[in-house]
Structure formats: structure tokens, C-alpha cells
């Protein structure tokens, strides 16, 4: 039984689409965050002194008090494995050729969800994980400029 299993008895249907294409901007914070990632290979955090709360990826306002966040910091490339999953299907429910590891790497109060390069058996929640960046020339200002995260001791 697969996720995409169809019922032969189902009523007849036809296919149509909603033709929607969007043109997104990075935003005020995104512009700065992704430039730092692309040009300097840094993951930036922003900090709210009033709420003592850190945002990663950095944002330009605090959702708790609506203050503008002007304290931006280098969060470093090493975070902590907060949780992970081993995926067997893609986002449309199609089986993947190779299972894929996805992890949530926490940086202080915030974090980044990304692909992991690791042996699933060696993963332990709480272990330090390091971002592996693409070479500077290949970076385009995308979250995919981070190729993946891998255990620090790998």
C-alpha cells in the first residue's frame, strides 16, 4: 500500500491547474542574512535584549515585543541536533530512490531545518552538527548555499 494508491471505484475526474507564479523578495532581514551567507559564509542570528530571545535565521523584528532588532551576531556554523527524520517519500508522496536524512539544527532559541550527511545509526539528538557550505563561487544567496549539516567529528 503506498501513499499514492488510487481507488479504481472512485468517481471520474479531470485535471486542471491554478496558474500561479510568484516573484518573491528576500525582505529586509533576508537581504542581509543571505548576503552574509553568500559573501562571508556566515549564519547570522538576531537578538532581542528586551525578551532575551535569539532568532536564527535572523529577522529584523521581534515577534514578542515588535522591537526592531539591531543586534545581529555571527551564530557560527555549529549547532545542536534537536531532532531528525529519515524520509522515504518526497513532498508529493512518491517513494525516494534513496532515503534522505533531514534534521533540525538548533542555534540558541532558533534553528535551521536542513539535509544531513550522516549515517542514521550514528545520529544522536543533542550532538553538535556543522554546516557544510558550498564553495563561495557556487553560492547564490539561497538556503541551499548550505549543502548540508554533518556531525562535527566526521
Amino acid at each position, binding site marked *: *500500500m*503506498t*501513499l*499514492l494508491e488510487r*481507488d479504481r471505484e*472512485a*468517481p471520474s*475526474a479531470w*485535471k*486542471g491547474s*491554478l496558474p500561479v507564479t*510568484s516573484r*518573491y523578495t*528576500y*525582505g529586509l532581514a*533576508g537581504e542581509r542574512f*543571505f548576503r552574509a551567507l553568500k559573501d562571508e559564509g556566515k549564519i547570522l542570528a538576531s537578538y532581542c535584549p528586551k525578551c532575551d*530571545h535569539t*532568532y*536564527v*535565521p535572523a*529577522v529584523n523584528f521581534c*515577534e514578542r515585543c515588535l522591537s526592531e532588532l539591531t543586534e545581529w551576531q555571527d551564530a557560527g556554523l555549529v549547532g545542536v541536533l*534537536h*531532532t*531528525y*527524520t*529519515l*524520509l*522515504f*517519500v*518526497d*513532498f*508529493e*508522496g*512518491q517513494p525516494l530512490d534513496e532515503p534522505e536524512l*533531514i*534534521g*533540525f539544527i*538548533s542555534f540558541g*532559541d*532558533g*534553528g*535551521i*531545518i*536542513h*539535509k544531513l550527511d550522516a549515517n*542514521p545509526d550514528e545520529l544522536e*539528538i543533542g550532538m553538535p552538527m556543522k554546516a557544510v557550505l558550498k564553495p563561495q563561487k557556487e553560492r547564490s544567496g*539561497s*538556503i*541551499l548555499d548550505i549543502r548540508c549539516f554533518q556531525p562535527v567529528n566526521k
Partner: protein
Amino acid sequence: MGMRKVAVIGAGMTKFVRRALETPKELSWEAAKMALDSCELTMDDVDGVCFGTAPDAFDGVHMNGEYCSDGAGAWNKPFMRCFVGGGTGVFVPIQGWYHVASGLFDVVLVVAEEKMSSYYPHAQAAFLTIFDHTTERPLKPNLLWIFALEMNRYMTTYGIRKEDIARVSVQHKRNAANHPCALLGEANITVEDVLNSEVLAWPVQRFDVSPVSDGAVALVLAAEHVAKRLTDKPVWIEGVGWHLDTAYWTNRDLAYPRYVEYAAKMAYDMAGIKEPRKEIHIAEPYDPFDYKALHHLEGLQLAERGKAIELYLSGAAAPDGDLPICPSGGLLGVGNPIAAAGLMKVAELFWQLRSEAGARQVPGQPRRGLAQAWGDLMQVGTVIVMGR
């Protein structure tokens, strides 16, 4: 606060199916008509209409509320659609409640609908577009990821075994075998069946998840003076609550749903409930995934953190236990047409509290029940407490 008492006086529900022939507006109409007929009212008696449906992408129609409005009975009426993702099904009766409690209307028709089979090839892909377009979407995330990450964190934090969590799915699917509208009732399903089902995103397996489905549910709400005239079995809305956690998924405590706790506290305060575990007699926590029922029971203060599984292991959660959980069969058993699934839980409380739940009626004439849903970008909690 000067609020009027509000009762549920009628309910209707379509079958939950994998792909309905009916259009979304036809599904809405079927449920609305059944709800009106159940309390012998007509549209002439209805002052306003509240409608709930989750992402437009499922039905494949932008502004789906307007598209479905005729089926929901909105012609020539004040009409409002609400949308808080998966939380919608429990938020839409809350919206109906304040329409009546405020004194604005005496009778409100509440309808929730979802037709997930329209999305092709699979509704999971619709969820890709709810994530941040810059920081998350390039990784092509889906909800299975998010749930799998959260389930792993929950299991690891409290040391809960997967074979125990599977008991939740087994209990709910067995309960659903007695629901005439259920898609996935399975009287004989076992823990082994769940553990042997296809792995989608470890630790989530096929039978840990509720199925995408099509369906609609409707309720009729009435002010006290109208309710007392129309029925001798009104079910009162005693408390409502809703609450939002951080917009950033990665800033949340994945092991514990604070947004549910705050929503529940709001509802308990309104209902005058001090000890939920003693004062709530049946509970319909939101269960799109089996671990999620446990997670939510803890947020609802019906179990201590990491301990909700004991309700299932001890038999307390069974239909004949001292706190029946999801006697309807829940999303895992009845099906999960998002907004309709949440409202199905509220309809279940209505039928159970009136002793009209047929083969799945829990013993002991429960006096008070709770339904809860969860959604938006996975950070909203919606709670309703009802009693007779």
C-alpha cells in the same frame, strides 16, 4: 462579561471518503441540510452562517469560502469564513459561538468542508506552499517531515516507545469501526499492523497517519431562549479558547504544545473547570498522527508531560474507560478532511452528550466533553468545552 449562553441543537455529517463525487459546495450542502433537518429548522430560522475550510489549494478554488457559500446556506445572510489551517474545524464553532453569545444573532449555522482529493497527485504537496519561501521552501519540505521531526523529539524527550504510540492508532481505528461515516474503521487492527506499515518518514509510518479525505460537517447553534424552545436536550458551549505560538517553527518547544495549554486554560477558565482530568468525561484531542493525540492530551492538562500514553496502556482511553479518548474514531479512523475533521469532533461531543452516538456511545452518560484542533503553521490551538 455579559455573554449569552449558547447551545448546539443540531448536527449533520457526510461520509468521509477518499474521493467524493460531490463538489465542495455539494458536500457543504449535504451537511448543512442534515444539521437543519436534525433540529427541524429551515433557512428562514437562521440569522447568520459561519464557514470553515482550510487551504484553498485542497479544493483547488481560490477564495473557497465564497465558492462554497451557497452550499453552506449563506444566500441572503451575513456570512463569514474562518481559516486557521487544521485548527479551523474547532475554530468555526467558536466563531459561531461569539456571533450568538454577543447577542448579534439567535441562530447560526456552522459548516466545515474539505475536499482534499482534488489536489494532484497528493495533498501533501499543497503543504509545500505554506512554508517560508526563502528559508524553507527550497528544501521541499512537507508536513510528514515536520511531524516526523516533532514525533522523534517527543519520543526521545520522554523515552516513549513506538510500539506504545501505535496503541493510539489501534484504539482510534477500532473506535471508528462503529462510526457510520468513517473511512478507516478497522475492528481488528493490531499494533503489529501499524508497526509493519510502510515507513514514510521515520518514525512516522503509514498507519501512524490519518488519511486525506473528503467530507463536510455542520452544526446549528442557538441562543438559550431559542434552544430551550426547540429541544429538551441542548448541549451547551461552556468554554472556548484559542492561542498562537511562535510563527517560527524552529523556535517552538517540540516536545510540548504550549499553544494547546494556553487555549485549554482559556476554555477551562470560562467553563469554571479547575481539575480537567476529573471534570472532563470524554475528550476528542486532535489526532492527525497518533503521537499527536498524546502530545495534545498533555497540553490539555489531561495527562502529565510524557505520560499520556498511560491512558491508553491502562485502558482509561477506551470507550468504556474513565476518560474515553476519541470515541468517534478520530482523524486516524474517521478520516481527515481538515476543517470538517475538527468539526466532526465537536459533533461527536454533541451526539455523545445526548446519548445519540449509536454503537459507539460511551457508557455512563458523560456530562462534559472537550474537543481540540491544531493547525495554522502548526502553532495554533483551538479548544471547545461542551456540557449538558
